[in-house]
């Protein structure tokens, strides 16, 4: 569109569009999910009750189970995930991405603990669960509920759920909430990562949360 000298009409038309366009852009930007003031890529849950009142048995092959409480060590973070070892895709993908994220953190990775709760208690014995997790993150807490009620209580605390179904032919199908939770030393869920969160985004969020002492966060 060629400018004609003295074309005040053209300029007036452009400026009339500018305000609605600016408003539309502003609304679009404003409508983008506000993750957190710190620019976290995961989802910051609000108004969630602390989960440190819940504990599950941490299993070690050949040794007695020890109760594990859902809270990080002071100054650290605890990653919690509900899954099962016969999961060919979702669980290994999440754990592999977490492993890559921890690798990116370097020395700070020591401040992050990992707890994996099996939702497939019948098939995931201590002998199966502990080595499975150790292959992704050595020192992970392998949590195996004693029964369905224990599992349901823990899931309820995280607002997670799962279902294990066995058909007439004995084929087992499992579905589970596939969110990764980051819990602080006071048992508060600071962040949630939906399935598919990249290892880069995980590393980014971990750095942000570790930099700012979790205890000081609201």
């Amino acid at each position, binding site marked *: 569109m060629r400018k004609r000298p003295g074309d005040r009409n053209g300029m007036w038309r452009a400026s009339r569009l500018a305000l609605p366009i600016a408003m539309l852009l502003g609304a679009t930007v404003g409508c983008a999910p506000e993750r957190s003031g710190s620019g976290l890529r995961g989802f910051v849950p609000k108004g969630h009750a602390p989960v440190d009142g819940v504990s599950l048995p941490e299993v070690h092959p050949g040794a007695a189970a020890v109760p594990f409480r859902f809270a990080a060590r002071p100054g650290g973070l605890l990653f919690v995930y509900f899954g099962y070892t016969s999961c060919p895709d979702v669980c290994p993908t999440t754990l592999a991405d977490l492993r890559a994220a921890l690798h990116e953190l370097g020395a700070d990775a020591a401040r992050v603990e990992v707890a994996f709760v099996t939702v497939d208690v019948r098939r995931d014995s201590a002998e199966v669960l502990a080595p499975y997790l150790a292959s992704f993150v050595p020192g992970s807490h392998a949590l195996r509920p004693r029964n369905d009620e224990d599992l349901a209580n823990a899931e309820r605390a995280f607002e997670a759920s799962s279902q294990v179904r066995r058909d007439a032919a004995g084929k087992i199908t499992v579905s*589970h909430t596939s969110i990764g939770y980051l819990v602080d030393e006071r048992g508060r869920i600071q962040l949630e990562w939906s399935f598919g969160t990249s290892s880069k985004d995980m590393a980014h969020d971990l750095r942000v949360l570790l930099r700012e002492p979790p205890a000081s966060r609201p």
Partner: protein
Amino acid sequence: MRRSSCTVGAVTLMAWLVCGCGPRAGTVRVSDAWARATPPTATMGAVYLRLTSGSDDRLLGAGVPDTVAARAELHEVVRDTLGRMGMQPVDGVALPAGRTVRFAPGGRHVMLVDLPRPLSPGERIAVRLRFEHATPETVIAVVRGP
């Protein structure tokens, strides 16, 4: 006028060259086949890959050697109404002509059922793919992992 006809000619030539690289009708090009290394006690694995068929076709199933798994099945990840993720077998996967169909984490995979031993990084797995029209193809999936 002369300039614009040359441009049209150049673009057509380039388009022809690009289109000429697609898979021929009746064949399926399979690429980027890989599997994740599995933990020592895992019983299931997954192969991911990309398929482009030269003509409308359908992937019917897959097979792997007994030394790799008892059987291979086509699966896809699904979400239920509560947002829980699970997977279900799929009865074939459509391969529309010229489109690249991806099997990727969180989506479709060739599930390896009942692994006799873990899949090790660097291992090469022969995956035999069966199609409705194209002749079966065997592709090598490379196992990735630290």
